[in-house]
């Protein structure tokens, strides 16, 4: 019998919490769950923002080092929000997903940070380097050396 690992216990706890008590605008996609290391979460654009009424899907991949290592998080197509920090391939430039990750963060807090990143947007446009980036980047956004800017 194999023991349930640290990562699995923590992911399982979050799974139950998100199923039973999700924050407004965040829904776990149960039907997509084949193993606990990969989740799909649906998020809705907040009211009174540029994304009100829009609906997006986030793809979460965890490693056995979670929560000491951040999850890999990307938007899943076909609808990728048009936002200065979101590339058309779904990659997100957000520091908490790499160097500013903390093991006290969670799927829920990541989803809320992304909704809040969308909410503060003033003009819907792609990042200025979108076309070069999507042609040259790795499949895993965590392999990118992100340069984070305020804004």
């Amino acid at each position: 019998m194999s023991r349930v690992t640290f990562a699995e216990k923590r992911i399982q706890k979050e799974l139950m919490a998100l199923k039973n008590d999700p924050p407004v605008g965040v829904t776990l996609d149960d039907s997509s769950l084949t193993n606990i290391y990969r989740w799909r979460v649906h998020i809705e654009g907040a009211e009174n923002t540029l994304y009100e009424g829009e609906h997006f899907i986030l793809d979460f991949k965890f490693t056995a080092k979670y929560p000491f290592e951040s999850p890999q998080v990307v938007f899943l197509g076909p609808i990728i929000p048009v936002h200065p920090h979101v590339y058309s391939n779904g990659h997100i430039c957000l520091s908490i997903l790499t160097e500013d990750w903390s093991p006290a963060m969670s799927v829920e807090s990541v989803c809320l940070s992304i909704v809040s990143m969308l909410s503060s947007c003033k003009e819907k446009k792609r990042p200025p380097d979108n076309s070069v980036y999507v042609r040259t980047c790795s499949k895993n956004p965590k392999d990118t050396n992100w340069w984070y800017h305020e804004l």
Partner: protein
Amino acid sequence: MKVKIKKWTGVAVWKWTANDDSCGICRMPFEACCPDCRIPGDDCPLVWGQCSHPFHIHCIMKWLSSQQMAAAQLCPMCRQGWRFR
């Protein structure tokens, strides 16, 4: 041999004195142990940072050792440099 407990009498309770109920890293209650331990108590103690945030010692040690650069060894809750209290 199987033993069936019919009755038991508790004579004392113990509790960690912490501001929070659960460890911010593993999300287990402080009265329980971290996911890698089996028995709560002295074998899986809490430690506090100078910032006053408590964690299971095994949890915070896993986090600190996963951060190679000393500058990145921050409290998971408040991001101040981690120092044991």
